[in-house]
């Protein structure tokens, strides 16, 4: 990262608080110290994000991050000197609707640029459309490996692929603890399957035996039989490729059935406050991958956190951070290109390497897959979320093995 860029981030950080305060106060540019007000036609950026349906909860974070960035840009001089205007729809967590909305954004609304939707299923469908219209797509809310295995030429990852979510937990933490067996279960949707299949692959490389692997249907209300089968095999680890509701369901039913493992980990949920709110003390010891945490010391991170809380009256989770990082990357790439030229922008996104609020920054391989970002591993300890890996970012020591259910 160049010193120049670091400085611009610091400046922006300073502008954020003032900018937001003035937006809320109603006099938009009164206190903004740095930039001249943007002028000319707005740059219109299209996106659809799930704010209703099963993924509505997490999708909302991403949508809010887009809005935060829009407000900040407009308060701080805009993009290429022009105002920024987001056109955002709700795809109701439905891939077909998502694809249709991006088609509408590009052909009817005639937006200048797009940013990615939330969740892998929707993104997979949307990428078909953006690719067809030659529109570069920054994937700010999805990570399934299959998106980058589909041969798209201008689809760029913002954070690590789902297949690597459990990499650190399996190849470092589990091996250090001397665990030798694992059960891997996952929901049969694009993203959870990617995380689960990735876990099986990493277990293979680490020499950990997968004693049971099984998928279960979306919206399953009962996984107790699946867990009964696993209880019989007595694995060291239970690895769940699951979204938040299933993570809660699996963990709760594991307790009900006295399924005793030394390590429990779930792909989504373990990093979300809802997980501990729902499960209480039972959430302790659970490990999970996180793409971002407020404590991470990346440029502009603290300012992002404060501005988000200021604007939306609640703390962001990592889905907000990845959305915001997507905006930052788009901004930098567009600034480097200097005009709205979609082909040049796609080229720039392939070669660009910059820091953003996510740990590890942005860097993609020749397929557009993210390789710079470093996922974190978090663990609940006494109701607090602690970063336990990688060690240079960790905020606490890992607590393993998990004690039996009745000895907590």
């Amino acid at each position, binding site marked *: 990262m160049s010193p120049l860029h670091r400085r611009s981030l610091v400046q922006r950080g300073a502008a954020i608080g003032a900018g937001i305060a003035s937006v809320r106060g109603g006099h938009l540019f009164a206190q903004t110290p740095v930039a001249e007000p943007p002028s000319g036609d707005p740059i219109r950026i299209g996106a659809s994000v799930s704010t209703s349906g*099963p993924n509505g909860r997490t999708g909302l974070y991403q949508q809010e991050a887009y809005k935060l960035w829009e407000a900040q840009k407009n308060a701080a001089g805009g993009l290429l000197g022009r105002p920024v205007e987001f056109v955002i729809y709700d795809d109701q967590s439905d891939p077909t609707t998502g694809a249709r909305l991006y088609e509408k954004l590009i052909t009817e609304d005639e937006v200048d640029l797009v940013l990615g939707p939330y969740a892998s299923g929707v993104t997979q469908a949307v990428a078909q459309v953006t690719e067809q219209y030659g529109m570069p797509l920054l994937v700010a809310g999805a990570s399934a490996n299959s998106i980058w295995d589909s041969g798209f030429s201008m689809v760029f990852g913002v954070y690590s692929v789902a297949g690597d979510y459990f990499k650190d937990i399996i190849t470092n933490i589990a091996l250090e603890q001397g665990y030798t067996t694992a059960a891997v279960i996952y929901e049969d949707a694009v993203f959870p399957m990617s995380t689960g299949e990735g876990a099986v692959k990493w277990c293979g490389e680490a020499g950990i035996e997968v004693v049971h692997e099984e998928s*279960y249907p979306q919206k399953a209300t009962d996984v107790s039989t699946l867990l009964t089968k696993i209880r019989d095999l007595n694995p060291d680890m239970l690895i769940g490729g699951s979204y938040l509701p299933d993570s809660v369901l699996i963990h709760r039913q594991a307790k009900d059935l006295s399924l005793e493992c030394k390590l429990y980990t779930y792909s989504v949920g373990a990093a979300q406050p809802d997980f501990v709110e729902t499960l209480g003390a039972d959430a302790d010891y659970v490990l999970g991958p996180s793409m971002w945490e407020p404590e991470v010391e990346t440029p502009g991170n603290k300012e992002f956190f404060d501005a988000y809380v200021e604007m939306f009256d609640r703390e962001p989770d990592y889905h907000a951070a990845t959305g915001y990082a997507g905006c930052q990357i788009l901004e930098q790439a567009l600034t480097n290109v200097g005009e709205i030229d979609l082909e040049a922008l796609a080229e720039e996104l392939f070669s660009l390497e910059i820091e953003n609020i996510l740990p590890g920054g942005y860097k993609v391989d020749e397929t557009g897959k993210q390789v710079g970002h470093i996922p974190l591993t978090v663990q609940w300890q006494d109701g607090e979320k602690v970063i336990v890996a990688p060690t240079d970012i960790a905020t606490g020591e890992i607590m393993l093995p998990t004690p039996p259910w009745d000895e907590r």
Partner: protein
Amino acid sequence: MDFLQIVVSGILLGGVYALFATGLNLIFGVMKIINLGHGELMMLGAYITFFLFTEAGVNPLLSIPLTAAVVGIFGFLLQFALVERVVGQPIINSLLLTFGLSTLMMGVALNLWTSNYRSVNYTALSGSWHLGEVAISKGRAVAFLISLLVTGGMWLFLNRSTFGKAIRATSEHPQVAQLCGIDIRKVRYVTFGLGSAMAAVAGALISIIFTISPEMGRMFIGKGFAIIVLGGLGSYVGALLGAIVLGVGETVTAYFTSTQLSEGVAYLILLLVLVVRPAGFFGKAED
């Protein structure tokens, strides 16, 4: 030993299905209406329990009578204001009406409470009791017992009390019941209320043992329908038995094949019954 565990889990699961399905069947028996909004009445019960617990700290088991009463009265009013108008009309009218109600209630709930998955974290009922190697989930065991109490109590009410007999009479032959001086309109109001209350109790129990969301009703209505077809449309005891069969059928299928396939058991049962014995266990074949 494992197999025993599976069967026990299945029976406990069936208990909750039973509470849902018997209410559905009660309404069908009296009005010949498939209440497609039954799942949403259950969802309403689940959310009332959830908010009483999280906002006011009310024990989720103690709030059950209140939840049942609130949703029961709501059901009574629904019947009074809307459903009564389609009784005795072609079945498509009532299907459209209750489908509309279902979608409306779900939409309002999505707006008010978002699509978040939530659950009542009642720690006294998490974990399990052990009988040998069989783990009996505390939450499910209690839910099963309450289901049995409510369905059993309702059965006694229908068979012993005067009003219960009036409900059964209306179910069997509305014209004759009316000739005997039974106010069948009032019977219908009360029946819809009672059925709704039973759905609400099922919802309350589900909020303790599973996760809840505004869309939960849609997951259960298909199963509820399969159960009452299996047990026999309109037959109270049949629905109880059908529910246990479905619960065990699901867990056993999941054990020997996969959880994926077990979700299809309800529909397989539905198909088989319609082909082999359309009247179900205890239903009467139509003339």
